[in-house]
């Protein structure tokens, strides 16, 4: 893993030198990632990014990983500026702490693309574009999936929903919860959300929270979880307790969620592919360098997936 990154970095640097002399249209794009290897999403993202870059003859990439360490990421940003890459893609380890480094790149005239999770607003003036999922829309779409299912079951006027959120304080968790909580009353005004507690992105924790909900409430019709990992934890709690007829909706469709949908126990989710995420980031950087105008928030699409249309999607690899 590490070796390959170093290799990627050296070949890219070498290629850059050659490129500088030969073809003017070859562009060098540096990326500093958050923490590859910590989860399957990020691992797949990196593979897809490298594959997409290799497929494009006009692009050379310098692929770096901050290992979750803010200081290392800032150093990597400085390295990339030093190497005079044409554009930098950053997956922030921390939305606040990386702003000075992003500013430095901006001042050096290097366009910066933020990928996956945006940096704090104070850094927006130095960012050319953000490429990533729209978590508020994801939350809203989950609410629509839930509501549509209730309508199909004919319980849209009395259904009761519990909500398991991600780790408190995380932007993704906050935005998805907001999207869901704002949208649900719009599409299903008579559905009542009776409780909301964090599951910390953790399947076991989510299962415990759901167990408590099942004791506390005799009537639960739907569960929305901030991701499928937690959703499957909640679903396992309901199955163990013998409570049937609950509609489970999540986000970030994981392989376990996809399998549970195939088994008919889990209803729906949001399909967010790390491959799309990586390709969108690379494309944003290329488009910028080609002089195209991009919206500041350049979201890639994350469609709804349910038991009804899951055949249109391949099983997630993570």
């Amino acid at each position, binding site marked *: *893993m590490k070796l390959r990154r170093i290799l990627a970095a050296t070949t890219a640097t070498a290629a850059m030198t050659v490129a500088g002399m030969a073809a003017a249209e070859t562009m060098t794009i540096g990326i500093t990632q958050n923490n*590859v*290897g*910590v*989860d*399957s999403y*990020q*691992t797949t993202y990196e593979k897809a990014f490298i594959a997409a870059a290799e497929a494009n003859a006009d692009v050379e990439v310098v692929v770096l990983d901050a290992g979750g360490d803010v200081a290392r990421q800032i150093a990597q940003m400085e390295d990339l500026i030093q190497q005079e890459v044409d554009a930098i893609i950053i997956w922030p380890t921390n939305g606040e702490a990386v702003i000075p480094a992003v500013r430095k790149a901006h001042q050096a005239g290097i366009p910066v693309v933020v990928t996956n999770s945006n940096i704090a607003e104070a850094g927006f003036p130095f960012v050319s574009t953000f490429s990533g999922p729209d978590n508020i829309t994801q939350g809203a779409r989950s609410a629509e999936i839930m509501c549509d299912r209730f309508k199909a079951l004919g319980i849209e006027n009395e259904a009761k929903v519990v909500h398991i959120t991600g780790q*408190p304080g995380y932007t993704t968790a906050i935005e998805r919860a907001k999207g869901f909580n704002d949208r649900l009353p719009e599409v299903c005004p008579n559905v009542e959300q009776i*409780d909301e*507690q*964090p599951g910390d992105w*953790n*399947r*076991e924790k989510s*299962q*415990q*929270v759901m*167990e*408590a*909900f099942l*004791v*506390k409430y005799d009537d639960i019709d739907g569960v929305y979880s901030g991701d499928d*990992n937690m959703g*499957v*934890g909640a679903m*396992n709690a309901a199955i*163990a307790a013998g409570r049937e007829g609950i509609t489970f909706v999540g986000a970030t469709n*994981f*392989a*376990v969620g996809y399998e549970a949908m195939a088994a008919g126990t889990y209803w729906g989710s949001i399909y967010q592919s790390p491959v799309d995420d990586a390709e969108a980031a690379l494309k944003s950087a290329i488009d910028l360098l080609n002089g195209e105008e991009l919206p500041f928030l350049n979201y890639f699409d994350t469609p709804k997936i349910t038991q009804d249309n899951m055949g249109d999607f391949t099983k997630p690899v*993570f």
Partner: protein
Amino acid sequence: MAESTKQDIGKLLAKQGILIAFALFIIGFTIANPKFLTLDNFENVVRSSAILGVMALGVTFVVISGNLDLSVGSMMSFSTIVVLDLHDKLGPTLAIPAMFAMTLCLGALIGFLVGYLKLNSLIVTLGMLSAIHGLTLTYSGGKNMDIADKEGTWFAIFGQGNILGIQTPILIFIALAALLGIILAKTPFGRKVYAVGGNGTAATFSGIRRARVVFLCYIMSALCVATAGLIQASRSMGSQNTVGQGLELEVLAAVILGGASLLGGSGTIFKTVIGVLILGFIQNGLLLVGLDFSVQYVVTWIIIILAVWLDIAAKRGKLMSPIA
């Protein structure tokens, strides 16, 4: 006669302050939500505390011997990931002993460093916390591990099965607590653990092989962690790499809440079990009461402080410090 009864009750209180605190919480939560005091809920809490509890049993040995173990959270993630991965490669019959062997190797390494090389246990296990996490990530490549065929394996019995209507994690927790409780309280080894933790120098001069005792305590801890990993893996049949992250502090909190001294030399398995249950019931109780999570964090802290205070107050027979 009345006087002696009063003294007896006083002694009982002094010995079991933490039990009284426990009883008070149960009453308090039941008033707040009557559903708290139902058999189903109790079973849920004990079952979900079992993983933490099994880990705390091992750490109790380590703490009594005067050391710390902050690596148990990472180690539990490691065991869980390894057993899930090997399940599909070797089948459960081989995967389980292989996972235990690998986890015990980690325990032996820590035991060697702390026991025989006499390195500070805080530093060693804090380092191991990250090192083992790195090892887990290298092993799995960061991927979630899931058992492919969840229906066609008997592996689920450790986490989801039941014997005579009692769920297996609870049975494992009780059986291990009983076994380790007897080892700690009734065997020469158990006495040596107290001696080493109470006064290591005196223990050495009494002919106790201190390094060996410490080493075995870490083996105990690793054994418990492997068991916890097995329950965890079997319960969810799949896992993230970070499943045990942060548990080391909860485990330590439970052990200390049970009254074991961080300086070593005191504590019992029974009290650790009570400490584990208090933590479990607080978490469950607060969910049932339905407070906002940010409030829950603070209330959890207040309850823990209250429990420790009641315990100490009962020991010295006064609510405030006797030394004015």
